């Protein structure tokens, strides 16, 4: 085999290997757990005509059925799970110590099925205490009935604080 062919193959292989690495890093870049959805929501508010932004790599954004300004994610802002985010996709989110909860709270002050957060038919997010021992607090008040969540209000369960954010 000629020297030239081997040199070309050698450099070609390195190029292909690095191309793979770069493509993999690109995948990570566009894989940031739904933040892209948030950006679309905010950019759409400025634009007119409701023309969706291009970039079809992601699934259809949930803008069709979401109210404007509705929160798109749930963020744990205090406690052991700080930094955890869960995308709000129109489904009930359960919180508690039970292993099958959406967010498993490892907290002595949490009950096994402590609270749930769900959207009502208008898309407004509601928090409901499920008969917990130590209670669920919205701002400073202990919940007794299912209550709509104002944007940015902290929900406290034991040592954990969660918020809904856009």
């Amino acid at each position, binding site marked *: 085999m000629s020297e030239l062919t081997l040199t070309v193959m050698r450099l070609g292989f390195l190029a292909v290997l690095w191309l793979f690495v770069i493509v993999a890093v690109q995948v990570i870049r566009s894989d940031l757990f739904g933040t892209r959805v948030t950006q679309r929501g905010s950019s759409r508010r400025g634009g007119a005509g409701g023309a969706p932004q291009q970039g079809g*790599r992601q699934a259809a954004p949930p803008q069709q*059925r979401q109210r404007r300004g509705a929160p798109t994610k749930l963020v744990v802002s205090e406690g052991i799970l700080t930094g955890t985010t869960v995308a709000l996709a129109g*489904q009930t989110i359960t919180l508690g110590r039970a292993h099958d909860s959406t967010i498993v709270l490892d907290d002595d002050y949490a009950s096994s099925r402590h609270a749930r957060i769900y959207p009502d038919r208008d898309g407004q997010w509601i928090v409901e205490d499920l008969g917990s021992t130590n209670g669920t607090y919205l701002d400073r008040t202990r919940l007794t009935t299912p209550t709509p969540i104002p944007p940015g209000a902290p929900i406290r369960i034991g040592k954990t604080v969660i918020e809904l954010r856009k």
Partner: protein
Amino acid sequence: MSVVTNTTTIGAIELPSRRNTELLLLAFAVVIPIFAYANVGLAIHNELPPGMFAYGAGFAVLAGIAHFVVRRYAKYADPLLLPLATLLNGLGVVLIWRLDQSERLQNLAKRSFGAFSPSAPNQMLYTALAIALFAAVLLILKDHRVLQRFTYISMAGALVLLILPVVPGLGADVFGAKIWISVGGFSIQPGEFAKIVIAIFFAGYLMVKRDALALASRRFMGLYLPRGRDLGPILMIWAMSLLVLVFENDLGTSLLFFGMFVIMLYVATERTSWIVIGLLMSVGGAVVVASFASHVQARVNAWLDPFGCYTTSGACEQVGQSIMSFGSGGVLGAGWGQGNSDLIGFAANSDFIFSTVGEELGLSGVMAFLLIYGLIIERGVRTALAARDPFGKLFAIGLSGAFALQIFVVAGGVMGLIPLTGMTMPFLASGGSSVLANWILIAVLIRISDTARRPAPAPAPSPDSEMTQVVRPS
């Protein structure tokens, strides 16, 4: 703005599952090793290697099966883990096949053992087995939280796996390190599997004891010092890893377990003091053991003066040879099949396989490999961050931490950064246990990331809405 008012479509909005991205990368990851295989054949034999398309097709089928299982049973899993592992495994087989072609190694094997048997077919076989095991783990393990129930059983299991190699009659002493057991003609390295089992124990245990370890402490010189009785578990793991070191002569396994425990302890408690304590303990232990275990001493000497070994007859030239092969690779490498890393001779295709990468692909190839490993670790840590349950978080961080430590220890060892420890480069090195265990590890990470990224389960039908539906006239 008219689209916003459409409220009738009620259906789960799915997060992108990214399976197609995975498939694309996987196709890429299958083509690269085939390219490498062709390249080795052309460089060594001046012709395309035999059965290139058959092997390539076989490899593609294996990758396809793995992808199908992930698509079917772990739909929301991370899209990168599977392609990265596939690429490394494929390139590993090519590296082993390339070393099988070396006449030097063939002659060496004939002189030492009387016959030469190629390792690449075995590695292919184990890869196929490993993919089957990967699929089985994803099929059986529907939810990683089930493993939490086996916290203490897995501790016992891990201890048994670690002790097995020293059991007389079962353990096999291979070149000084007792890390093998031979069962019915197969030799198995139980330490590779113990790595995963013990991560279950650490995660389950630390989840429960975290508060005691994190909160009950005194502040001293800017460090939170734990209470004496809370030091118990770390002392026990430390003693155990030292026992492994002394009785099995296995620096790598011992370092891996202790390091993994310290990493998980730090993540669970957020206390820097544990890292300081852990480092002090491992340095202290290593110094004490090195002062009387000759096996460890020889490794340290070879590390301090790799080229001095050529003048003494310590049979420790490997590190020097390895460093030279990295050096002669330069930036762009000698090219597949054109290096002389087979001069390392013994263990060229297992412990020292990374030297072949260094010589034939050069610095740029080594960097690409390390980045690929780094990406696997990054995806593991990302999975841990995204997991919504503390057990899953700790488990994922433990597995990726162990993986990272292993890479560091092996790559550092062959490059002369730290003393050589005799562990295997995950996915690259020849050896069935390593391939099987690492594919299980990837399967578990994929399962945890699937749970972490899966959108919240469908809402339970609430009584209010049902009542509304009954009342509404149709």
